[in-house]
């Protein structure tokens, strides 16, 4: 069994847990994901399964995509495809379906998504550079300041913070507690925020850094 699912971020809300504590949660519609392809060391050089989520409209589907989906017994091509690396050969077969029941309440998950795009941003927003004083005639407000020394080293260091494009990066948030799993609606409630806007595609996986002591998944 794999412990990763592709899903869609629905949005954030709050729920009361068993201790009557109001917990901030993100609702993720995760799965059901069909196994579209199984990769093995013999055929591909590594072990993995390719899973698909949601469906694509027929008019947007290429023949190649459709044929690939048909192999897994699907009528429509999945809108999102993702690959999950495995250390050992997969026990799953093409056509199997993975659901949100993979996750248990109380366990930790990692969520991978693409952060919201911020466009071209200056250093104050992008790298939290302090900037200059707003008043007293400083004429130096949100600028970057010095970017180096003198003849030595005679160049600007790598990784010097400068203005540029911010956001739209793949980001992983680790160790989010699963507050609730609503299996019949394919929903999973994780504590805290996850990357991306509502409606964006995300990958939810069992936390790689391990589980809390009480729950071993």
């Amino acid at each position, binding site marked *: 069994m794999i412990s990763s699912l592709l899903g869609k971020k629905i*949005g954030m*809300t709050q729920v*009361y847990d068993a201790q*009557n504590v109001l917990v901030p949660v993100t*609702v993720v519609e995760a799965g059901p994901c069909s196994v579209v392809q199984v990769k093995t060391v013999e055929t591909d050089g590594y072990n993995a399964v390719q899973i698909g989520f949601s469906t694509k409209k027929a008019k947007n589907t290429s023949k190649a995509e459709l044929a690939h989906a048909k192999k897994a017994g699907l009528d429509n091509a999945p809108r999102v495809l993702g690959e999950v690396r495995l250390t050992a050969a997969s026990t799953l077969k093409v056509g199997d379906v993975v659901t949100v029941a993979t996750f248990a309440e109380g366990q930790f998950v990692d969520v991978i998504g693409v952060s919201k795009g911020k466009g071209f941003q200056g250093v104050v927003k992008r790298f939290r550079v302090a900037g200059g004083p707003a008043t007293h005639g400083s004429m130096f407000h949100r600028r970057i300041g010095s970017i180096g020394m003198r003849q030595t080293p005679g160049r600007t260091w790598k990784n010097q913070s400068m203005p540029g494009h911010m956001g739209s990066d793949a980001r992983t948030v680790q160790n989010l507690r699963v507050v609730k799993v*609503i299996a019949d609606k394919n929903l999973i*409630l994780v504590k805290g925020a996850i990357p991306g806007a509502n409606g964006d595609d995300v990958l939810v996986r069992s936390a790689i850094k391990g589980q809390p002591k009480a729950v071993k998944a």
Partner: protein
Amino acid sequence: MNPIIKEITAAQVKTDITSFKVGDGVRVHTKVREGDKERIQVYAGIVIARKGHGIHETFTVRRISYGEGVERVFPVNSPNIEKIEVERESENMRARLYYLRNRQGKAAVAVKERRFEDTAAAAAKS
């Protein structure tokens, strides 16, 4: 609101809350856990604000305790709130009674009370 989120929180949003509004004098009965024992604690004061909607809705209760103003914010839908009693109803023209914070003495708890004649007159008018 997203229909899925609405459905998730709907089960936890209380439908049987005592109706109260800003300006009312209330007694809030809250469950307090001490070790494995649970008891009810009552906090009485004036509701000076009611904010948010759905599961996020909260209200602020202000009281003068030993000459010191104390404000407590309660989530309306908290399972820890046993019940809310309305001690005196008010007739307020404001949504937030933050001006009470700047008042001292008797004026600090002065809120226009709804009188019986007023409600009777209102009923006669309609």
